[in-house]
């Protein structure tokens, strides 16, 4: 059974480490915050200028001056801080943010990522995505393995305009967990419960490297 959005987020949460500062993109990545393992402290940064985000506010306590990069109303925890956008991206470019989780339309077998523009369609902009992918040492992509047309999103090379080159380290999809090999290719680490290696292979256009033992995703 393929992982649903929460399953993908839960699997990514296992990559968190105590004390990590983490930037979560819009969509599935945001859900990762709901699955921080017990007893672990992780601080969430949002690139519009806040560190130490808490849960969404309860009704009536929304503050127009307190939002995340998705423009959603938020709250902050004890020990939070606010700062300007230059300071925020200093944290990102300077690799003080240790993990970035974001969505993608395509990832190539050498770690290129495309997630901001579809030629011919209205382009909304890259926001902070290009800074995030060019800077982070540790980037995990959260996405479905194939697009709505059933075509693979793990490609030999991206067909869409790039957001960044050679930057993706790990990919968690509804079907599998994969690592981008420094020599190129997707190393299959885990498959979702009930998903076969054959299915992953058939839905991965890029080079798939299948080690001797591929474990099942444990949540």
């Amino acid at each position: 059974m393929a992982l649903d959005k929460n399953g993908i987020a839960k699997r990514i949460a296992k990559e968190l480490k105590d004390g990590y500062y983490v930037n979560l993109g819009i969509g599935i990545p945001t859900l990762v915050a709901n699955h921080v393992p017990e007893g672990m402290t992780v601080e969430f940064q949002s690139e519009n200028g806040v560190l130490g985000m808490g849960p969404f506010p309860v009704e009536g306590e929304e503050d127009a001056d307190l939002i995340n990069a998705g423009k959603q109303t938020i709250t902050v925890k004890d020990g939070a801080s606010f700062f300007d956008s230059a300071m925020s991206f200093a944290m990102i470019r300077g690799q003080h943010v240790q993990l970035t989780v974001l969505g993608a339309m395509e990832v190539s077998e050498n770690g290129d990522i495309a997630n901001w523009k579809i030629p011919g369609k209205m382009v909304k902009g890259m926001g902070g995505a290009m800074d995030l992918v060019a800077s982070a040492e540790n980037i995990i992509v959260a996405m479905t393995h194939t697009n709505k047309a059933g075509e693979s999103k793990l490609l030999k090379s991206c067909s869409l305009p790039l957001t960044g080159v050679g930057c993706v380290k790990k990919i968690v999809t509804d079907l599998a967990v994969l690592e981008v090999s420094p020599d190129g290719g997707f190393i299959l680490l885990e498959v979702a419960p009930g998903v076969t290696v054959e299915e992953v292979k058939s839905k991965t256009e890029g080079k798939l490297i299948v080690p001797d033992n591929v474990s099942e995703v444990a949540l």
Partner: protein
Amino acid sequence: MNKVVNSAEEAIKGIESGMTLMLGGFGLCGIPENCIEALTKTDISGLTCISNNAGVDDFGLGLLLQKKQIKKMISSYVGENKEFERQMLSGELDVELIPQGTLAERCRATGAGIPAFFTPAGYGTEVAEGKETREFNGKMYVMEHAFDAPFAIVKAWKGDTEGNLIFKATARNFNPLMAMAGKITIAEVEELVPAGELDPNAIHTPGIFVQRIFQGEKFEKRIEQRTTRQA
């Protein structure tokens, strides 16, 4: 030397058609509402606006787009804005998209007398096309330049008569950077106090960067994505 002006109308004096303006804010958070409204009441047009976003249809920079006062937007994300989309697709509006961190750093560089710097953002993408790239310590970077903006318009929470500003929470965002960058910087504040009332240790934007300041008549502070949890 009196920096205090009486109204948004007085504050925007000198802004002319065809000029480049920097406007603070992220989404609808921390935007200079009063000055934007004052601009809609003028016949100034052909503006180039440097702003992280472009407002929504009926608020923020969307109001200037409705009145076709903007000829070019320089932003990182233009969001959900039907009139924007229409003008862009019809070619009426020119749009330059810049990575958000690069936009922020370019604003700071403008104010800090740094004509150019290197950033990894956008290397290998269309953003780097035609730009100088260079390797430092085994990693590739793109050279980016400072802007040149005669006017910056920012919104702060508190300000004093010397032009010192304090922003609230994430309404800070691009405001302090653009305040540094404007040759003339206009600040609209929720509360204007006499010099000496703000703690000198807690100032976000020192008054040296602000040429005109006023207390805004009203602040709607609209919320773009009201998101709540169960109590």
